[in-house]
């Protein structure tokens, strides 16, 4: 109370303080109570790894690299912190030097000479060991008696909890920050923004959620591995996708690698994702284009009969034969028996522009199908440069090359009612400070009329049923698809080598309401043979598990 003027200064100050506390209380009410629920929902999934990651580190100005999750919520890639040991030469007493060197050499597993000179010179900062396991680092810390050794748990290491699962999709990040696979394709969003000024803030990287389902991925990889052991080829690759959305559900190749130990594979070709980075002549599985084009252009019906001339034809100077003697076949039978002569006759009636146009519609001339790097482009010659006989060889899948992913995507067209979906490998990006970005399915173009697509589907179904005697179908689930066996071109001898073959089978199931399209490629099996012998069993093995998993 102020006796002079009757102003209660104390009360004014008290009112000010009350106002201040009230503002803080309201703000806290807002943060703690109203934002609370929201943060709970956010935290249970993010909290665990984000907080624990940051707990383990003394990270201040480095952004945290985002995690990679599978569609079904499994953590596929994250960043852990390991120990970094460095020494301060001026703090290591001369009598401690020998002991310290011995201790460090022991844990490093090799003689550390480099730091000896640094200790002599009393250098203030000598890096000793990087990315050391916490257990080892703790044991060194316990045994260490010198003041001059420092332990910091702030050395980031990329960690892939499921080891080899999905390795080709994920890729890896090496210590220099170079990467492959999804790690490379989405490096921009994953890595966040680094800062150099300590008063600025690093922006953490976003989490990437893939379209890969780890279960389906496992079934695929298990089948690929089985196929590799069974037929001992150079490699076995496979892709499984959802025909309706273009989502890649699984993709892989065997032999595979462990991205946690990427340094062991520096000279190895195992890190190549052969499902996209390997291009080959598809052979008969490419006959899909001629099949669909013939129906869409209405040059044939299912009842048409094509004379296959006993299985041999001299088409404009190129002598081509079937694998069995075929006389007069109906249109579906041409594909059931995979008659080259029949398909060439159909292609001749279509004309080269039409055939090329349909190959283009099916997406075989696209430069890139997926966000992933190092995709081998499909090599298809422009129709204006074709020599006359190329119409025939093109229609049966020779004189060009495709990659397995492209070929599989083409089979999504009859499976989903005639449209070509845009392929993608990620379904969502979760940004730390803004809304998640959902990738929506996009249709690139309509390739076939819906009716035509259904007819193509039925014919492909009959190919598996009659041509393969249902060897590709798991119990109770009908598969539609087409095999392809192509002999390899020997570039030294300048001719096709009959012993070296690459086999493919692309199919979808269930045939009446397709949910999965799967493409399998087996490269050069030891015994040779036909795709129906060495690819279809691999397909069936994976399809059986997938069908059981999805309750078909």
């Amino acid at each position, binding site marked *: 109370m102020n006796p002079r003027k009757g102003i209660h*200064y*104390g009360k004014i100050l008290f009112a000010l303080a009350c106002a201040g506390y009230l*503002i803080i209380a309201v703000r*806290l009410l807002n943060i*703690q*109570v109203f934002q*609370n629920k929201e943060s709970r929902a956010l935290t249970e999934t993010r909290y665990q790894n984000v907080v624990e990651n940051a707990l383990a580190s003394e990270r201040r100005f480095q952004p945290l690299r985002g995690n990679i999750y599978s569609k079904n919520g499994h953590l596929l890639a994250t960043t852990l912190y390991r120990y970094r040991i460095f020494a301060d030469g001026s703090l290591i007493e001369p009598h401690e030097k020998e002991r310290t060197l011995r201790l460090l050499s022991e844990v490093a597993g090799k003689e550390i000479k480099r730091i000896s000179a640094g200790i002599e010179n009393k250098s203030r900062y000598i890096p000793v060991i990087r990315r050391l396991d916490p257990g080892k680092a703790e044991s060194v810390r316990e045994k260490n008696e010198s003041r001059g050794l420092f332990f910091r748990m702030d050395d980031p290491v990329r960690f892939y909890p499921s080891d080899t699962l999905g390795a080709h999709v994920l890729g890896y990040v090496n210590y220099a920050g170079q990467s492959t696979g999804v790690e490379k394709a989405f490096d921009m969003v994953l890595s966040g923004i680094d800062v150099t000024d300590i*008063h600025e803030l690093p922006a953490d990287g976003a989490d990437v959620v893939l379209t890969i389902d780890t279960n389906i991925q496992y079934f695929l990889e298990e089948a690929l591995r089985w196929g590799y052991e069974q037929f001992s080829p150079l490699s076995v690759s496979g892709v499984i996708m959802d025909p309706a959305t273009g989502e890649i559900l699984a993709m892989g190749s065997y032999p595979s690698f462990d991205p946690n130990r990427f340094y062991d594979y520096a000279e190895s070709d195992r890190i190549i994702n052969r499902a996209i980075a390997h291009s080959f002549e598809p052979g008969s599985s490419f006959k899909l284009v001629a099949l669909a084009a013939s129906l869409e252009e209405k040059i044939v019906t299912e009842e048409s009969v094509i004379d296959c001339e006993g299985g041999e034809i001299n088409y404009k100077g190129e002598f081509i034969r079937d694998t069995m003697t075929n006389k007069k076949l109906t249109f579906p039978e041409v594909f059931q028996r995979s008659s080259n002569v029949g398909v060439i006759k159909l292609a001749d009636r279509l004309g080269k522009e039409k055939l090329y146009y349909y190959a283009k519609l099916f997406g075989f001339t696209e430069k890139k199908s997926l966000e992933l790097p190092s995709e081998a482009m499909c090599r298809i010659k422009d129709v204006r440069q074709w020599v006359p006989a190329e119409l025939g060889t093109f229609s049966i899948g020779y004189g060009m090359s495709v990659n397995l992913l492209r070929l599989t995507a083409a089979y999504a067209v009859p499976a989903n009612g005639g449209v070509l979906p845009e392929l993608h490998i990620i379904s969502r990006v979760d940004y730390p400070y803004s809304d998640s970005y959902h990738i929506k399915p996009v249709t690139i173009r309509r390739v076939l009329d819906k009716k035509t697509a259904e007819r193509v589907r039925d014919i492909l179904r009959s190919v598996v049923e009659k041509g393969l005697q249902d060897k590709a179908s798991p119990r109770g689930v009908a598969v539609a698809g087409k095999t392809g066996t192509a002999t390899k071109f020997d570039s030294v001898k300048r001719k096709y080598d009959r012993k070296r073959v690459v086999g493919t089978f692309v199919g979808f199931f269930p045939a009446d309401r397709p949910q999965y399209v799967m493409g399998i490629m087996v490269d050069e099996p030891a015994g040779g043979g036909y795709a129906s012998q060495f690819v279809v069993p691999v397909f069936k093995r994976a399809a059986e598990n997938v069908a059981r998993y999805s309750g078909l």
Partner: protein
Amino acid sequence: MMKRPKAVVIDMKVILAAFYVFSVLAMWTASVTPAMRNTGNPLFFFKRHLVAAAVGLVIYFLCSRLVLKRLLPLTPWLHLFSLLLLFAVFLPRLGVEINGARRWIDIGFLRFQPSEWAKLTLILYLTASFHKEAGGYRRLGDHFSLNNYPLLMTAVTALLIFAGNDFSTSIVILVLYGIIYFVSGRNPKAVMFWASSALLTGLLVVLRGGGFRSGRLDSWLNYLFHGGPPAYQLRHSIAAFQMGGYFGRGFGSGAYKSLLPEAHTDFVFAVIGEEMGFVFILGLIALYLIMFYKLIRLSDESKHDYERYFLLLTGSLFAFQSIINMGVTVGLFPVTGMTLPLISYGRTSFLIFMALLGMVRSIEKDIMRRIA
């Protein structure tokens, strides 16, 4: 016989006991990670805080026996001494630089912050000089003449602290002058005018001045008004509060506290918020309000100007410093290095507040004697 009242509002001992309990428990949970990080001994800060708390009790007891009136003539010399100490921060052997700020003096067995000490002596000095000159300086012109030693001293103090890279404390010093000028009843309109213009100039200087301060302020303004990302510490502080909810995650089970670089000093409030929750935080705020209310009631009871000045200055420092600290943790103020009075680790600050409250107690005893 009627029982003689011993205190106004609530006994100081009770309030202090509550603060002690909160402070020790808060340190017990909040200081472990920073202590591990800095020294490797998880109880390093906690043990030191316990020692400071014990010494604080002794200081409180000693100060409660002081007779403030006898101390007043000495205050200019006391404050000159703290100016010397503030200057000593810049001497190469004595001064210690931490995180780019020169705020500490190291004399072997003891390291302390002269700016905290200066807050104490300045409060005493301002109390004494305004008491002595009651009724003087009616016009603004007089106020800025060189004969006005209190303002000169305050300005020099603020400048020295500012030179040690402690912007917020120098502002607090100036505000203390503004408060006593206001409370002493001279020309309140002028106070408002000068205070608001000083605030605006300060803001402009900081915003245009560049450097880390402007960076901090920019990021804070961006966060508060444009919904940008909060600064590193603030991000975790707010996340900590969000985890807390009504009743907290439970004592000792907070996770975000480990992410706060200054969990035991500047951001202890966030740790309490995460572990104990909103309801408990309201209780803590009430405790600060009770303390301030007690000092104001005391000042109402007091018959002497110097007592009034001292009580109001001490109370304001106590309340507004706590408001600033809490405001920082919830993102209402840009990040500054202000402790939460009587809770945070920061031994100089803790002891200074205990000394101030000890003197408050001595005034209280005096008032009780008069009432009785």
